């Protein structure tokens, strides 16, 4: 197996003086999708934001063998870390085309081609302001902003949050296509989507890693799912508080 | 339970004050020393213009005391509750001009006139504060600035009432004999000292009250206060009104000391001066505000004397022009303090005595004040 693309070791982060991530360590393999799981508010989004330097953090982060934990956010991204934030965060006042133009670093024909192929909708709506799009379309813009560049890894935060089931499938398919070319670290609540995309899972609890392993193994074990993720694998399963 | 988080957060501050009575003891010592100054002949060349028993020196020291009291009231607003106001001078001016107009137009005695002037200012603070606190942060700063500016315009325009650009003189008909005239400067000085100590006590009392803890908590985390079921708005408004009332009280004494007031006391520059004093002394520190007021007032006076001196007049233009403008030097000094001495004088003293940790706390406090 090849070296991991992203190594996180002893990562801690604070928001307004409050510890939100504590001593988290995990790796993202150079291929496929790694899912970062855990109950709500457990620090998944904060972990991703800490890796990007969007919040104050300590610890080691390596991208393809080079340390990036001291770099400012824009330099980290320039080194090939694509980011699809929670809640999409498209620029509502900008058009779809402008959103993409802003994100594009250099001109990568394959990136553009991939976006055009995955999201034909966006090509049609490129002159429309992103704020006037539906939630699903905004999510496509957000993903497209990451795919348009050649990246070493993508950090994708809750891409299906608040989307209609049909759109969820589109987003998952798009991510599956993207994963053929670039490894992805995925935060996702929808276990169906995790099952479809992820090979490996990392589970956080109160800001720490409590489980690591193949995705299928965890998802096929209802007890573990309930215990670690606080979701009922089957209706009627008992609440698994620790 | 509700206010438990606040003291915990202020651990650094608590540690310095240690026992609750420590600041009060310090205040007693300060008050005692300051109280006997007019009876002594202490000379500090370069700092004071003459020995401490002379009216000229006492006048300057009384001004220091008044600005210290005013800075303390501003500290309550900015340092404690994190409200950056650019209109605090308005309430100071309301006190000064309110007293002046009442003494001139009515037969009220000094004390009732002061009480009414402060009451009027408090009422206006309540109304304007309620509107200004509709917004927070920088918008709040701008809105308070706008209101103060309107006050300034009113004072300048309505010369029939306020004397306009000429300023308003103290009408001494109903002012007690012992507060009038150059020879009685030391009595006014003592009154100013009493006012400073009174303002200090109110500030300490407020900061220790439940409302004060909530004010600090809402500066740090408005959401948490809301979760606790308290309305930050009410507490902020209360802080705003108390700080304004204290400023008005200070303004009335200022009016007596200076035997009048000019529109400069209403200007935005005057509020900015206060901001400079508080930041110079150290945001969030009561003693910082007091020390800052002394340093600023004395420096301003000395620099003005220096600017008019022959030594400066003989310099080439490139040096003479900047040196002959006290505000240029003070402004530059202020910039340097903000850039290189976070925590101001108080922060530097604390850093010297207890290592680097406190600086960070001071900087965080400044940040959180936003």
């Amino acid at each position, binding site marked *: 197996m090849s070296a991991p693309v992203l190594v996180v070791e002893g990562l801690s982060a604070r928001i307004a003086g409050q510890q939100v991530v504590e001593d988290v360590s995990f790796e993202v393999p150079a291929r496929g999708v790694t899912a970062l799981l855990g109950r709500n508010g457990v620090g998944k989004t904060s972990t991703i934001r800490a890796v990007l330097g969007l919040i104050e953090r300590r610890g080691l982060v390596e991208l393809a063998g080079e340390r990036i934990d001291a770099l400012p956010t824009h330099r980290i991204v320039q080194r090939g870390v694509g980011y699809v934030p929670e809640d999409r965060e498209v620029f509502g006042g900008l058009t779809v085309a402008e959103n993409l133009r802003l994100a594009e670093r250099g001109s990568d024909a394959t990136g553009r081609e991939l976006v055009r192929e995955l999201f034909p909708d966006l090509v049609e709506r490129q002159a429309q302001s992103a704020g006037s799009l539906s939630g699903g379309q905004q999510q496509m813009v957000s993903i497209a902003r990451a795919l348009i560049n050649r990246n070493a890894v993508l950090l994708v935060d809750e891409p299906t949050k608040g989307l209609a089931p049909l759109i969820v499938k589109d987003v998952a398919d798009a991510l599956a296509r993207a994963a053929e070319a670039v490894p992805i670290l995925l935060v996702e609540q929808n276990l169906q989507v995790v099952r479809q995309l992820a090979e490996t899972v990392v589970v956080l609890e109160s800001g720490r890693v409590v489980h690591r392993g193949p995705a299928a193994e965890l998802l096929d074990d209802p007890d573990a799912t309930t215990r670690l993720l606080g979701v009922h694998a089957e209706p009627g399963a008992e609440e698994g508080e620790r | 339970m509700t206010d438990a988080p606040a003291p915990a957060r202020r651990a650094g501050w608590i540690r310095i004050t240690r026992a609750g009575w420590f600041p009060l003891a310090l205040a007693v010592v300060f008050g005692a020393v300051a109280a006997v100054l007019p009876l002594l002949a202490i000379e500090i060349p370069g700092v004071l213009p003459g020995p401490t028993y002379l009216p000229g020196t006492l006048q300057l020291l009384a001004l220091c005391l008044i600005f210290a009291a005013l800075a303390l009231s501003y500290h309550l607003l900015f340092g404690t509750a994190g409200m950056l106001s650019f209109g605090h001078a308005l309430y100071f001016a309301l006190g000064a001009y309110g007293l002046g107009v009442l003494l001139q137009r009515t037969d009220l005695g000094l004390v009732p006139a002061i009480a009414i002037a402060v009451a009027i200012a408090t009422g206006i603070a309540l109304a304007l504060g309620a509107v200004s606190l509709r*917004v927070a942060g920088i*918008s709040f*700063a701008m809105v308070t600035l*706008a209101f103060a500016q309107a006050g300034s315009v009113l004072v300048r325009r309505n010369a029939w009432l306020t004397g306009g650009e000429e300023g308003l003189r103290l009408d001494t008909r109903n002012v007690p004999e012992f507060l009038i005239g150059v020879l009685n400067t030391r009595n006014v000085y003592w009154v100013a000292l009493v006012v400073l100590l009174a303002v200090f006590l109110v500030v300490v009392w407020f900061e220790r009250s439940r409302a004060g803890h909530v004010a600090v908590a809402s500066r740090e985390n408005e959401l948490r206060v809301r979760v606790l079921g308290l309305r930050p708005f009410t507490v902020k408004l209360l802080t705003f009104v108390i700080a304004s009332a204290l400023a008005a009280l200070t303004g009335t004494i200022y009016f007596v000391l200076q035997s009048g007031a000019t529109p400069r006391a209403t200007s935005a520059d005057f509020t900015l001066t206060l901001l400079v004093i508080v930041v110079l002394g150290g945001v969030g520190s009561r003693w910082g505000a007091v020390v800052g007021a002394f340093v600023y007032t004395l420096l301003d006076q000395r620099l003005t004397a220096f600017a008019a001196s022959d030594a400066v007049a003989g310099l080439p233009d490139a040096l003479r022009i900047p040196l002959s403008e*006290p505000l240029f030097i003070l402004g530059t000094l202020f910039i340097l303090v903000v850039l290189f001495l976070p925590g101001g004088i108080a922060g530097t003293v604390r850093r010297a005595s207890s290592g680097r940790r406190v600086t960070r706390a001071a900087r965080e406090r400044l940040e959180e004040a*936003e």
Partner: protein
Amino acid sequence: MSTIVLLLVTGLGLGALYFLVASGLSLIYGLMGVLNFAHGSFLTLGAFAGFELARRLGGDSWPALIASLVLGSAVGALAAALTELLLIRRLYERHIEQVLVTVGLSLATVALFEGIWGTDPIYVSAPAWFGQTTELLGARIPNDRFVLIGVAALVLLGIVAFLRFTRYGLIIRAGVENRPMVTALGIDVRRAFTVVFAIGGAAAGLGGVLASHYFGYVSAQLGGSLLIFAFIVTVIGGLGSLSGAAIASVVVAVLQQFANFYWGVGDLVVVLLLAGVLLLRPAGILGKKVHA
């Protein structure tokens, strides 16, 4: 009728001045969260630079006026860019301290201007055409009003075009909306900071030269007095909104003119308007959510 037209056009002229100051304030605040108290000094410096140049070129000719406008905006831009690079940048993300530094800068520079040019207003001369009037719908309107309105309109168009058609403009528009996300797209936003400061400074410097002709004099206090109204305009228009600033500039200035003419209370009406807007719409006419 003619009075109304005169007040309207004069108000528009004053609004143009407000806009030249407020546009920069609003852009700087929108992108960086900095309330720039030194903005008035950029204006004053531009005005003095323009005045000095025009004086050396012989005062009241058209080329001298145009040269002074160009120099005024260049000096304003330079001063603003230096302020950002030397002072603001050191305090990255520490908004209160950034405001404090601009407060100190404004105090120091106004004092310096007084030291250099004195405390009294200095009267400026302009091409004769400036002082003449043109008849419009029965009202005799001083010509400088038209120049003001024209220049402000050009500046508005220029800034809008810059924002719309350049890469920096794109970054600035996105940054006003959501700055962290711009950095998360691999863009160093800080370079855009210098650009907005320079643009704001240029507009202010240009406004300074025009203000000296509108009021007929230049003084160290020129910028400070306009700045307060520009603050009010930016709050009413909505912090960070350029079009909000444009609309509010016109509304505030026209209202001020009318209230001044009929009741002599223009400044108070403006403050009342501010209070009213805050009560009804705390975020301003076109503002985003209230910045807490």
